[in-house]
């Protein structure tokens, strides 16, 4: 007997993600799903961002890692609630993990929630967590072949931050190639070049974030 089903394989996750999204909207929190490969500088970006904007917006952070609380310890500062999720092996966060983390956050007292996903260019893209948008971080030391190798993450992100621009003289990374290939995959993608180390470009990222939070 053949039974037609026609269901989305990830519908269970998508249902929970929609519930999360409703909660975020009710509480007027702008939520970013921050994705990148390991070592691109997600946690440093968070540190700089909170440092630069904490007088203007109330931040909350969810840290996703396979193990350890190292990132949560780095972010922890007065007035910024941080929840660490340890996936215990899973290579991504999903809607349900975020749902549980939200029990430990007072959404009503936040303007921006940044979710630092597990460092991985493939799996986090598959699992909606209810975010407003994905922001992708790519560092120049990872190589400029990433758009063609991992197209889906470029396709699904709203903003691409190219980080570690201060290392450009020392690595073979063609910024123009990355821009061209990323835009080919996603014509709507916005791109900002930054260096979390020197601070170059960060004001453009702050402006971008300010505008999005204001539009919430």
């Amino acid at each position: 007997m053949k039974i037609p089903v026609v269901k989305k394989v990830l519908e269970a996750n998508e249902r929970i993600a929609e519930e999360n999204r409703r909660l975020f909207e009710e509480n007027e929190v702008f939520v970013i799903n921050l994705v990148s490969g390991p070592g691109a500088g997600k946690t440093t970006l968070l540190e700089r961002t909170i440092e630069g904007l904490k007088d203007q917006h109330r931040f909350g952070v969810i840290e996703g890692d396979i193990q350890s609380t190292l990132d949560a310890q780095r972010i922890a500062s007065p007035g910024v609630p941080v929840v660490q999720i340890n996936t215990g092996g899973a290579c991504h966060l999903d809607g349900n993990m975020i749902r549980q983390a939200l029990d430990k956050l007072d959404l009503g007292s936040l303007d921006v929630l940044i979710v630092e996903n597990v460092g991985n260019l493939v799996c986090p893209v598959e699992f909606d967590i209810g975010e407003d948008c994905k922001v992708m971080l790519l560092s120049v030391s990872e190589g400029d072949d990433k758009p063609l190798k991992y197209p889906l993450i470029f396709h699904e992100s709203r903003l691409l931050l190219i980080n570690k621009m201060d290392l450009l003289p020392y690595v073979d990374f063609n910024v123009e190639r990355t821009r061209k290939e990323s835009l080919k995959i996603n014509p709507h993608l916005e791109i900002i070049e930054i260096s979390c180390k020197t601070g170059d470009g960060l004001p453009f990222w702050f402006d971008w974030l300010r505008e999005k939070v204001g539009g919430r």
Partner: protein
Amino acid sequence: MHELSIAQNIIDIVCDQMRIHNLSRVESVSLRIGLMRCVVIESLSFSFDVLTSGSPLEGARLEVEEVPIRGRCTECGHGFTLKTWMDDCPLCRGARVEIISGKELDIVSIEGD
């Protein structure tokens, strides 16, 4: 390794359907998976076999139809299959292409009794 999570989601849906339709055995599950999903079919089948071993689903086969990536030219509206990500519109050479399929991840049918 998103294949493991995907396999678990497939199993959850199939188990629900087995209850609804009173099936005691499942022979195969048909899936449509878009190439943008970067799902490695061998890993998915392997994960599915491991997770179903010793359960009523043991021995069920995954039959996957892979869906090509199709785009539409934002200039002239022409729809075409992308062979590589750098393809321009074959009609007007327009460089801006919107993706219209290739992200599917659906269960289509279940065969069993």
